[in-house]
């Protein structure tokens, strides 16, 4: 699955896109896996206003993930 980070999240993590094996389960499990690798990123993902899109649709944290999913973490949007 592909994981995408936007805006300030990209600066925190030092990467923008990563292909990884999906952790079994939901977005919650993915966040936990990312936080284990990088505590600062884990904290940034928990900040208020960070939305999650799976295959370009906003979802809740308990959304299930497929192996082909594109998961994007969207920090508060700035407008253009």
């Amino acid at each position, binding site marked *: 699955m592909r994981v995408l980070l*936007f805006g300030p999240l990209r600066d925190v993590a030092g990467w923008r896109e990563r292909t990884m094996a999906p952790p079994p389960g939901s977005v919650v499990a993915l966040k936990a896996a990312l936080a284990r690798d990088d505590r600062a990123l884990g904290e940034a993902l928990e900040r208020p206003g960070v*939305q999650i899109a799976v295959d370009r649709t906003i979802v809740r944290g308990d959304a299930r993930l497929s192996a082909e999913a594109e998961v994007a973490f969207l920090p508060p949007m700035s*407008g253009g």
Partner: protein
Amino acid sequence: MTVRLQSDKFEPGDLLAAFCKGRRDVGAVVSFTGLVRAEGESVQALELEAYPGFTDLQIGAMADAAVERHGLIDVLVVHRTGHLRPGDPIVFVATAAAHRRAAFEAADQLMDYLKSRAPFWKKSHEAQGARWIEPALQDYQDAQRWDMSAPGPLEDRR
């Protein structure tokens, strides 16, 4: 209805001329061009990030809603992404309607949405360093004029 994100520069006059061309049922075209402000001399560059395939879809949904609400005949939104310099055109909105009121109001509404809620992430490169920008309070208040303060169906704020 057309929404375009592009990293290349655009010429607002060319966009407007092309948008107006060959129309016989349109009595009013309103266009807005936003330029990158230098804020004195503090802003050296802006970096605008979009999520292609998501950002354009969300803006398209808002443009469709504006077409519906104001009875527009057509809308064009062009937004730049990537690195921009002060003075660069960053956004262009054109609305076409039978009469002027609808065209003015729709362009106003679309710009309020684009400035406050559109899925972009904006970094300002300044002499003191770079910082990520959030919408100004005024931008939120402007958007609220159109009853867009509550999360819409496309936004699921947990």
